[in-house]
């Protein structure tokens, strides 16, 4: 597969790794947060950690839209499907996210709620057209990458005057979350992160420019990277080099798909339909100002939150869960007492165990053999 296979070559990986090993200074610490679950996935799936020297540590960020969806919003989605007896369309990713009372959308479906898995926002629109006598809500989640499609179907619904279709919008914003991670510490300068691997496809949409303010303000380098393993390794090398040089610039490893300005057409569609939400509750991170989108009043007829008077009720994250610390880079999944025992991908307790891109799930699924080995031998991570 062109533009895929070339970026998965093991020989090249070892060459880049050798450069990283050569250039990373032994006494220095390179704590790099890959913001995005796509990178977390690549790191776990390809075993990239094995290729990095000990002083280069990868920290999994909150960049998985499924993981960060707060319990309260899943509860609302379940209530829409169960109480209002409407058709709730959702990407499969959200089906197993734990909600209150041991529920999830999948369990609500098993209890009779009409929850339909869609592969594209278009399918939700089609379902609404095929079921004119029933209300259809699209449970929209995702970062900037997934937002334009939701905007496009809302525009279409408006054009077709579809009265039984609406969107429960949960789209969130990457730069705001990155900023929050820095801001939420008492002293941003002391945050235990030395650089960021910037998201691939989010940046395809928003461009590299939005990260400039971030690097300037927080003096941490950001390297936008593709999701293939060589992309990640090259980005790590680029970060190591910036850190060595004391620089903190935005660099673009994923130049084959990301420009400075991003996808202008998609941005225009998004800003026609959406506007900034004052604040949004992120699972693990808590309330983050200006970190999400809401539907503009011109399209309020398609806003499920208004149509069905959805009132958000904040639900505390489970006590035992260390996600908040993990998502901020303070802890590792293996540090959580319930990892792999009470908390598993089958019965996740916290956000990070939900999607295969969550920090804990990725570790459980792809890296558990190492954690187990570590536990067995008593060696700390």
């Amino acid at each position: 597969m062109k533009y895929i296979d070339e970026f998965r070559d093991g020989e090249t990986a070892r060459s880049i790794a050798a450069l990283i090993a050569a250039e990373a200074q032994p006494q220095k610490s390179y704590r790099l947060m890959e913001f995005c679950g796509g990178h977390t996935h690549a790191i776990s799936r390809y075993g990239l950690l094995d290729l990095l020297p000990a002083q280069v540590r990868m920290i999994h960020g909150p960049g998985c839209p499924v993981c960060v969806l707060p319990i309260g919003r899943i509860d609302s989605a379940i209530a829409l499907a169960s109480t209002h007896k409407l058709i709730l369309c959702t990407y499969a990713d959200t089906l197993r996210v734990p909600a209150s009372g041991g529920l999830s959308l999948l369990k609500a479906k098993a209890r009779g709620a009409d929850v339909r898995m869609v592969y594209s926002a278009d399918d939700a629109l089609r379902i609404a057209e095929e079921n004119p006598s029933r209300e259809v809500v699209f449970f929209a989640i995702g970062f900037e990458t997934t937002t334009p499609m939701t905007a496009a179907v809302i525009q279409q619904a408006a054009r077709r005057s579809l009265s039984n279709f609406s969107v429960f919008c949960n789209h969130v914003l990457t730069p705001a979350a990155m900023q929050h991670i820095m801001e939420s510490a008492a002293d941003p300068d002391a945050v235990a992160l030395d650089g960021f691997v910037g998201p691939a496809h989010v940046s395809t949409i928003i461009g590299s420019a939005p990260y400039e303010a971030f690097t300037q303000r927080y003096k941490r380098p950001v390297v936008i990277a593709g999701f293939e393993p060589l992309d990640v390794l090259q980005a790590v090398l680029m970060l190591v080099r910036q850190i060595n040089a004391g620089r903190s610039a935005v660099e673009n490893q994923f130049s084959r798909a990301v420009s400075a300005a991003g996808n202008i057409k998609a941005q225009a569609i998004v800003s026609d339909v959406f506007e900034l939400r004052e604040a949004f509750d992120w699972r693990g991170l808590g309330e983050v100002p200006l970190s999400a989108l809401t539907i503009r009043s011109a399209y309020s007829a398609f806003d499920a939150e208004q149509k069905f008077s959805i009132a958000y009720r904040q639900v505390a994250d489970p006590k035992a869960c260390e996600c908040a610390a993990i998502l901020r880079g303070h802890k590792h999944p293996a540090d959580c007492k319930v990892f792999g025992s009470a908390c598993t991908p089958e019965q996740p307790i916290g956000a990070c165990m939900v999607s295969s891109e969550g920090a804990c799930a990725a570790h459980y699924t792809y890296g558990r053999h190492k954690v187990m080995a570590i536990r067995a031998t008593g060696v700390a991570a």
Partner: protein
Amino acid sequence: MCLAIPARVIALFGEDRARIDLAGVQKEISIALVEDVAIGDYLIVHVGYAIGKIDPEEAAETLATFAAMRATHEGALPLTPPLA
């Protein structure tokens, strides 16, 4: 996150639709979010929509960098150590 994959355009239809091919798997997608799509382009496909195009020159440049790095450090690291 944001599962997206580059695939080659093999046909263009009206209403912003295109057919893409990935190693023999073909699918119709929306190109409503991208401009100036031509047959032969590689589009980045996410949930049934193209979100951008691969710039072949930039891709070539990245691959050239890789080649250069490979030349400097061939096979310098061992495989993963055996299971602990």
